[in-house]
């Protein structure tokens, strides 16, 4: 299902499944929660995806592990390495996603080489065929994103753009314009990982993003627990929770533990 809505500059702008779902939840007054899990991590990772959906995730990010994840800190590096050692490939992760059969929209998060190797067109089609709604590619900045975005748009895959604390305001508006699904506000200067304190930059970037776009704005990177998530959602529309969840999975939380953690965050955001 997709809806055509008018937009400032572009004549028409297709709103995809992830963006529709997030906009609907936001309109209902709910704060958005998008957990991240590394695809192929452990034999039960698809059950973990299902548990996240049941626990109240509004969207689910599934990482396709890459050998050289430069935007990731120690936890997700370790998870990627373990998943690769256990035989994860882009194909195996996509077939896992297809087999999960969850209604919650799924975004894959990966690095551009895995897409470039397969070819933009072929990978966009494979994502669509696997039931994936969106793609997040942290090493594909706006200037290089054209060829991929054209194929993704054509296949109905929403390309989520990332905004950083160092992004100037004028550029922020261009990122928001090109972005689909939601605008991913990187909460701090640094790689993914838990932080004991919420960075001041998280609120600042959320505020700046909200000023330039009506897209849902979700803050990720350095969002580690319920109280931090709640604090950010005073400004942002929602949060992405990655390392805090993946660390629990690496420590053996399993589908139940992962689901409990996300349910706890859900409850904190809803009250």
């Amino acid at each position: 299902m997709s809806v055509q809505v008018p937009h400032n500059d572009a004549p028409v702008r297709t709103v995809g499944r992830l963006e529709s779902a997030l906009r609907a939840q936001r309109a209902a007054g709910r704060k958005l929660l998008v957990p991240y899990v590394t695809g192929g991590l452990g034999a039960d990772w698809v059950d973990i995806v299902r548990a996240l959906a049941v626990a109240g995730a509004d969207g689910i990010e599934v990482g396709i592990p890459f050998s050289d994840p430069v935007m990731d800190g120690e936890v997700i590096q370790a998870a990627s390495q373990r998943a690769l050692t256990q035989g994860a490939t882009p194909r195996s992760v996509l077939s896992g996603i297809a087999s999960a059969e969850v209604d919650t929209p799924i975004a894959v998060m990966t690095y551009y080489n895995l897409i470039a190797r397969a070819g933009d067109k072929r990978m966009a089609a494979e994502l669509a065929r696997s039931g994936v709604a969106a793609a997040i590619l942290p090493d594909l900045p706006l200037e290089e994103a054209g060829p991929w975005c054209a194929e993704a748009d054509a296949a109905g895959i929403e390309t989520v753009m990332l905004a950083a604390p160092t992004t100037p305001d004028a550029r922020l508006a261009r990122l928001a314009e090109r972005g689909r699904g939601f605008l991913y506000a990187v909460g701090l200067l640094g790689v993914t990982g838990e932080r004991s304190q919420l960075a001041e930059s998280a609120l600042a970037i959320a505020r700046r993003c909200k000023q330039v776009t009506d897209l849902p704005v979700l803050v990720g990177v350095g969002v580690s627990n319920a109280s931090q998530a709640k604090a950010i959602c005073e400004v942002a529309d929602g949060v992405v929770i990655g390392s805090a969840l993946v660390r629990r999975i690496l420590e053996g939380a399993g589908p139940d533990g992962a689901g409990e953690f996300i349910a706890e965050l859900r409850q904190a955001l809803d009250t």
Partner: protein
Amino acid sequence: MVAAPSPMGAPDASGRFGSFGGRFVPESLVPACMELETAFSEAWADAAFRARLSSLLASYAGRPTPITECPRLSAELGLDIVLKREDLAHTGSHKINNVLGQALLAERMGKRRLIAETGAGQHGVATATAAAYFGMQCAVFMGEVDVERQALNVFRMQLLGATVHPVRSGSRTLKDAVNEALRDWVASVETTHYCIGSVMGPHPYPFLVRELQRVVGDEAREQYRERYEGADPDVVVACVGGGSNAAGTFAGFAETAARLVGVEAAGGSAVGHGVPGIVHGMRSLFLQDEEGQVLEAESISAGLDYPGIGPEHAHLAELGRASYEAVGDAEVLAAFQVLARTEGILPALEPAHALAWVIRAARDKTLAPGTKVLLTMSGRGDKDVAQVKEMLA
């Protein structure tokens, strides 16, 4: 009539040499790359900046480095071999040319901390040296495997005031050191300049580093012409990991008739066995599997232990303006010893690769007897003596 463009001109506005290059970095780093691009283009057009760099290269780094004829080696191989002696530059390799330029740029941009990746340790030592000279902070990322096999260079960096971070992820070599340096830079970009050691990474680095290294090729061409009554060498040879000494050397000869040959380690031969990919901020050739996972390079030379190659080399290979050859560890060890015995020069293991190819090409007559060869001796072998001793035992 419009002259044909130089095969080694500036990249296009997107930072591409042909289809290779570009800027594939996290959004956090995009503004810093743009700032560096502007700073470099202004500085490079600024006579005062150029004069300051030239003066530093002369008074501090010891430029110009000489060219050296090799009568005994030439007689043994039936060739006419001349070395460009980057091993005689301060810190023992060509790396100093690049870091002095980048430290000046960092100063110009108001950044007081330098970070660097290093394989063999030569670039780490050079960056630590420049940081000491300019009174800047310095952190060097080095794979744990390399920390072990290049312990002396680790100690040198520490003496120079740098912090050395052993990298334990992935293959624990140069590729992973680059990853970790990028991760540091994502967090520290507002105060820190990433001093990339080769003609690799996101735009403008491949261009910037080549321009800072072209002094090697420009000097060598003039010195050679002076020595040989205006003639150019038939063949110009340099080793290639990322490819900075080769890019600097080739830049001086791209518009001559000289054949250009880059020599890779057989276990890290990106041109020989790589396919196009996007890693470390650039589109280039990389050793990778059919899914796009980057493979680990394998070489005795920590400096060439890299699964990719600078984008301009990928472009030169595609154009056919340069060719790329690969040599194995055994040939390299033999070349190391031949140069020591015949000319009294201990080469670093990296340029010993270039020599190993020359020796092979002389024997199998790929190079006709009497061929005039210029080889860039990119670094000295002191750092490798302990490792070579072990391997020969």
